[in-house]
């Protein structure tokens, strides 16, 4: 649940960020259904100046504006466990708007392969297997007895042709 909540938070923060970067309003309109989960005090550590959202004195009161309005400052998140590694970011709020999101720590999005590599040798590589069209002289594989019979039949029939 912690991971899901954290992921949701990151998404919502991004949405908020984008809205603020591109929006034409001063108000913070975080109106996603899950927006009630992201009041700053809930997710942003108190070692900064984070405070509960305060209603703007100048803006016309509206529920969205009230719930989404942030106090200016920089807010550093706690270090979250994002499944493949730590996640930590810093928000900059100015003029009541989130103006910047800086990721201080991010999990590698290819965590699985990194983990495989770090176990022993960092030089192993990976690929998804795909059928090859090239003709081959012989095939290496684990054998099955029933299959052995089929192969033998095939090669015997080929031999019979020539």
């Amino acid at each position, binding site marked *: 649940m912690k991971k899901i909540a954290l992921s949701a938070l990151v998404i919502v923060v991004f949405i908020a960020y984008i809205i603020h970067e591109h929006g034409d309003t001063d108000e913070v309109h975080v109106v996603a259904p899950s927006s009630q989960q992201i009041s700053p005090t809930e997710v942003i550590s108190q070692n900064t100046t984070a405070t509960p959202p305060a209603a703007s004195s100048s803006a016309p009161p509206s529920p969205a504006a009230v719930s989404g309005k942030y106090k200016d400052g920089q807010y550093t998140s706690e270090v979250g466990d994002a499944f493949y590694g730590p996640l930590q970011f810093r928000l900059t709020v100015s003029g009541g708007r989130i103006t910047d999101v800086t990721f201080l720590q991010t999990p590698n999005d290819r965590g699985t392969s990194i983990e*495989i590599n770090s*176990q*022993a*040798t960092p*030089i*192993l*590589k*990976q*690929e*998804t*297997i*795909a*059928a*090859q069209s*090239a*003709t*081959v*002289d*012989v*095939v*290496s*594989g*684990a*054998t*099955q*007895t029933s*299959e*052995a*019979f089929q*192969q*033998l039949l095939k*090669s*015997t029939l080929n*031999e019979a042709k020539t």
Partner: protein
Amino acid sequence: MKKSQLIMGMPVTIEMMDVDSNRIFNKIFDYFFEVDGKFSTYKFESEISAINRGELKKENFSREMKEIFGLANSTKNDTLGFFDIKRDGVIDPSGIVKGWAIYNASKLLKDEGILNFYIDAGGDIEVSGLKNRKKWKVGVRNPFKKDEVVKVFGLTNAGIATSGNYERGDHVYNPHAKHSIADIASITVIGPNVYEADRFATAAYAMGSSGIDFIEKQRNLEGYMIDNAGIATYTSGIGKYLV
């Protein structure tokens, strides 16, 4: 010229370039039948069956049997104990006999002056010389689709072997964990000869997903491991075999 025979419950195929000699084919096939007669745990009258019944003392083992026991012992040491011919009190050296037999058969062919050939016994292959002045093209079978090849290597004077559970039920196992290997569909190993490739493929397969790391650490060996998600992990030096 190419010929196949069903020996040890698997097809043994020999292809020789510029040679058309039934005598030579038969010599090689006879050798495999002889090995099967000695080491097959499915044959009541085989030497290994007699050993497992306790009817044969160590000093009365044949020269070949002593050799195989010695090789199995050193392989166990070379592979951190992951290769073991003893299972549930029964000695089954088939995991080492196959590669050893193919390698010996290839030496018999070379003794006959034949240099351009491959010998394939159940998907483990010794490759010698060239085919029409090019490296032999050896495919890796898709463990999920037996008629499909998912990788092609160009080989000369090398051995290649694949171990996987899609072969015969559960015959490779992890002697440390005492259960079968779940995540890995197959591991293919290329080495200086099929004996090395086969024994290390068997051991690496028993190691599960860390088997490929083990192969990476071996000099002269390269590996191509396919997991059950269809993702291949391969060693750093495999590029020299790509065609």
